């Protein structure tokens, strides 16, 4: 209750009321102003390139600070790096020395203990793949980094989480930091870490710990905050001291949630270890994939990529099985701790002795490897040879009719060779005439939002995202933010825009926005349709769900392989990779939203005599809309996130800026570009969340 009063005080309802009357007028004014700028100012370079005199060398300034900081504290960070190197080398050495049979049987035993026979068999099968294909050494190197990373991240995350739970002030600070840590692309903070900790595999470890800690923090806070007050009180009334109550009552009650955190932390750690491979210096599986991909050895990169997939599935299933088995009395109980330890030692001993006597059980011999890379390459080449025309055509069509218009606009993309006609003044006239008629009709029916949206979208297609003046963006986007979310969001969006312009990354930012918005638009349509389909058919749902699960557990990196294989590098390839990753939440939330529409509402519709179409459009879709909007928001964030990874296969934009900075170890440039990405993501997120929360009120 007190919270409600507080939020009311902070954000009075008056603003929302006033908006309704002012908004159409504001939009009219902004549209008129934008038209003036675009028509009258079309020859003014100043309006289309953000003037350099207004730019501030933020990157240089950051560099200066960074280097000062590094000079002062390098010894300290290098010391940490040394300290961490020891256990890392030890674990790595130990796992390399361990016969694969011992490792595989112990991992299988642990998996069985957590999730029963199925999980055990799955784990064993996937590990055997890694062994047989001959990537044991690389796989185990990656795994050893993850294995050291997990306890560090879990411990750090738990402590921060407890702190955030106990102190509201700390909580605010922690949540804001986490938001930034998770939206700034991981590559961007690889650079300062490199500078501070020096080169080498330890950097990968440290980056992974930083990247993998946030989910643990969040889940710890969530779990502790969700302990029912009655359980807390029952602890107090049982005579617990505050410390007893924390360790005996609150932590155990929050434990299932924390295990979910461990699962997410593990997956994040794996993802980051793979990404950190681009620094190199470590013979791990991520490096193998990247190297093969760069040499266009697709068979090899698929085989290596599959190893990453195997590792991801194993780690996910094992941690999840322990998280799901919240209580010791679920269907699969596993062994008691003592028996488990005895079994563990027994299996270790037997498998080790076996491996001593039978050499292939210790190190899988090269001769027995099954490495069908060449066959796969031939297959890929055959496919490309047979379907090359089709692939090429679909790629070109997409380029000419979707990507280029959005990026450059009709003015710069319609030519007789591609579209079959030239953009004559008559056609331009007809185009704008239709647009104005559309807007006028919308106005006539009193849908002023649509009347605004039509010319806006038409202009984006006509001029292209990169062809619109920055002045127009400065007018339109904050107003959009204001319409969706109110004054706070407006300030944030305006601030972000100014940062992007002033720091000199406006052009790459626009390119990123362009690619991401095309990907998101496609995801919304395709994913929405798939979600609707899945919601109507159990069979479709049963097929789509595991695919979605896999797409989400895979380190993003792996998704690049098939895209590059068939379409080489470029915007289109990146687009495919982004869609493959970002479409998942759209499908999921649409399906879930439609499926959770209350049956009573549907029955009410049926008894009121609705046709199936009416039930779908007016009841199901309306009631599922809040969930679908959440899906759109997630899809956007996922898309921006993947954009940076996709830059590996040759897109321009902020992602590329970050890579360039990484290769030059240019901390300032990297941070500015990373911050730019984060600000775009957070602006989109805040606008959409504000809109969603206002709709649901």
């Amino acid at each position: 209750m007190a919270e409600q009063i507080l939020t009311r005080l902070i954000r009075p309802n008056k603003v929302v009321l006033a908006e309704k009357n002012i908004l159409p007028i504001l939009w009219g004014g902004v549209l008129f102003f934008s038209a003036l700028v675009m028509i009258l100012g079309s020859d003014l370079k100043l309006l289309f390139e953000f003037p350099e005199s207004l730019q501030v060398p933020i990157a240089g300034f950051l560099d200066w600070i960074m280097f000062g900081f590094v000079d002062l504290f390098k010894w300290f960070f290098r010391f940490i790096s040394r300290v961490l190197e020891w256990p890392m080398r030890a674990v790595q050495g130990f796992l390399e020395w361990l016969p694969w049979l011992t490792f595989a049987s112990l991992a299988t035993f642990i998996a069985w203990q957590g999730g029963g026979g199925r999980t055990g068999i799955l784990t064993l099968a996937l590990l055997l793949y890694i062994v047989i294909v001959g990537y044991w050494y690389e796989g185990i190197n990656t795994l050893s980094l993850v294995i050291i990373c997990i306890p560090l991240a879990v411990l750090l995350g738990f402590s921060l989480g407890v702190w955030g739970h106990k102190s509201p002030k700390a909580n605010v600070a922690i949540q804001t930091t986490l938001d930034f840590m998770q939206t700034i692309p991981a590559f961007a903070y690889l650079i300062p870490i490199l500078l501070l900790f020096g080169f080498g595999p330890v950097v990968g470890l440290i980056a992974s710990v930083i990247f993998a800690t946030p989910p643990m923090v969040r889940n710890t806070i969530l779990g502790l905050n969700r302990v029912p007050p009655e359980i807390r009180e029952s602890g107090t009334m049982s005579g617990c001291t505050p410390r007893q109550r924390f360790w005996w009552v609150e932590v155990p009650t929050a434990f299932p949630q924390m295990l979910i955190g461990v699962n997410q932390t593990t997956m994040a750690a794996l993802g980051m270890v793979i990404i950190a491979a681009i620094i190199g210096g470590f013979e791990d599986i991520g490096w193998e994939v990247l190297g093969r991909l760069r040499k266009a050895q697709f068979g090899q990169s698929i085989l290596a990529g599959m190893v990453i997939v195997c590792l991801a599935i194993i780690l996910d299933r094992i941690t999840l099985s322990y998280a799901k088995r919240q209580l010791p009395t679920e269907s699969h109980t596993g062994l008691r701790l003592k028996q488990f330890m005895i079994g563990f030692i027994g299996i270790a001993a037997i498998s080790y002795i076996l491996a001593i006597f039978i050499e292939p059980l210790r190190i899988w011999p090269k001769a027995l490897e099954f490495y069908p890379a060449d066959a796969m390459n031939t297959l890929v080449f055959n496919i490309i040879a047979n379907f090359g025309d089709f692939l090429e055509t679909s790629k070109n069509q997409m380029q000419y009719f979707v990507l280029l218009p959005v990026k450059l606009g009709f003015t710069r993309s319609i030519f007789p060779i591609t579209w079959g006609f030239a953009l004559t003044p008559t056609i331009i006239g007809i185009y704008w005439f239709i647009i104005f008629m559309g807007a006028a009709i919308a106005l006539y029916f009193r849908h002023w939002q649509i009347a605004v949206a039509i010319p806006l979208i038409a202009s984006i297609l006509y001029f292209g995202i990169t062809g619109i003046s920055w002045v127009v963006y400065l007018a339109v986007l904050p107003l959009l933010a204001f319409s969706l979310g109110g004054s706070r969001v407006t300030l944030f969006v305006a601030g972000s825009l100014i940062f992007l312009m002033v720091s000199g990354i406006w052009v790459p930012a626009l390119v990123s926005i362009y690619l991401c918005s095309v990907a998101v638009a496609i995801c919304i349509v395709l994913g929405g349709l798939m979600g609707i389909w899945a919601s109507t058919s159990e069979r479709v749902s049963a097929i789509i769900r595991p695919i979605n699960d896999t797409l989400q557990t895979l380190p993003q990196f792996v998704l690049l392989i098939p895209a590059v294989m068939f379409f080489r590098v470029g915007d289109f390839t990146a687009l495919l990779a982004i869609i493959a990753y970002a479409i998942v939440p759209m499908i999921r939330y649409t399906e879930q939203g439609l499926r959770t529409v209350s049956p009573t509402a549907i029955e009410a519709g049926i008894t009121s005599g609705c046709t199936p179409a009416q039930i779908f459009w007016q009841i199901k879709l309306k009631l599922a809309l809040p969930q679908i909007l959440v899906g759109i928001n997630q899809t956007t964030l996922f898309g921006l996130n993947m954009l940076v990874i996709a830059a590996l296969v040759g897109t321009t934009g902020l992602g590329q800026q970050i890579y360039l900075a990484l290769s030059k170890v240019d901390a300032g440039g990297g941070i500015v570009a990373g911050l730019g990405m984060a600000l775009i993501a957070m602006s989109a997120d805040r606008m959409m969340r504000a809109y969603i929360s206002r709709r649901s009120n």
Partner: protein
Amino acid sequence: MPSASSVKLSCKSLWKVYGKNPEQYFTGEVGSFNVEEKFQQLTENDSIIACGDVQFNIPTGSIFIIMGLSGSGKSTVLRCLSRLVEPSFGKVELDGLDLLNQSPKDMIEIRRHKMGMVFQNFGLLPHLNVLENVAFPLKAQGISKNERSARANEMIDLVGLEGRENSYPHQLSGGQQQRVGIARSLAAEPEVWFLDEPFSALDPLIRTQMQDEFMRLQKQLNKTIVFVTHDFHEALRLADTICIMKDGQVVQIGTPSEIVLAPADDYVKKFTSEVPLWKIIEAQSIMEPPDGKDVDRPSVKPDTLLEEAMRLFDGKTEEVQIVNESGECHGILTPASIIRALYRDEKKVG
């Protein structure tokens, strides 16, 4: 009704106010300000009064029931008594000891040895089995594992859960879970027993069964009980004394029959209107003065319920006499007096 005995637990001028720094409005001693003015002052300052100016005394070994609808402040009062909620102002005394002056450390000791509490949604620890849950308060005290298991087993037998020691809360029905809650609250052998809507989350049939069980336990253990409920019938069934609350204030305190026969205001009357009065009213509370006749007629004890007394009127009987333990006649019941009582003729009763 318990015979006159010492006061076990009491509170005086108890306030719990939510808002900006509510303590600033309470400076003087208990009883040093006008209650109505204070209410007005607090409301004007946007404070929320969860409970205001609550006072009562609870005699040793009696069942004190706080009854009220949701938001009436009944749970807040209960939590103030154990300092689960820190009162803004007032006095809470247990055996004459001022609880609000105890250090946190002393409070832990008092909760460990003198208080037990049962919760509406049971408040069981999901990761512990029945035995461990019941033994939990003893674990907090640092009692050895063998001893606490033995004591917990006794409690489990007491509430009739033998054989379920190794089950986990989620494997039990609601009624069984609350039995665990009851066993746990009694494990440390408390003197004061708090129950916060203990049976509200249960099905009606189970609820009645648990109420009987509760009365059986109380006969055996004779604790001092503070019981919170929103169910007026439950209060009438179980209470020695009922305290009715509304909007954070006490409306009326009295025995069930006092409340039914003389509701303090329309609010209380609304609750009593649907009550089967013959199950609550005692013969002595509606009797007429003895008529001195010495005839052979049925007799009842003063605290006999009307339900029972009414059955004695057969074709020949015109009145029933009320006789105390030493055989003296206190008064008589006539059909007219009973009818008047059941029709709520307020002038003639009480």
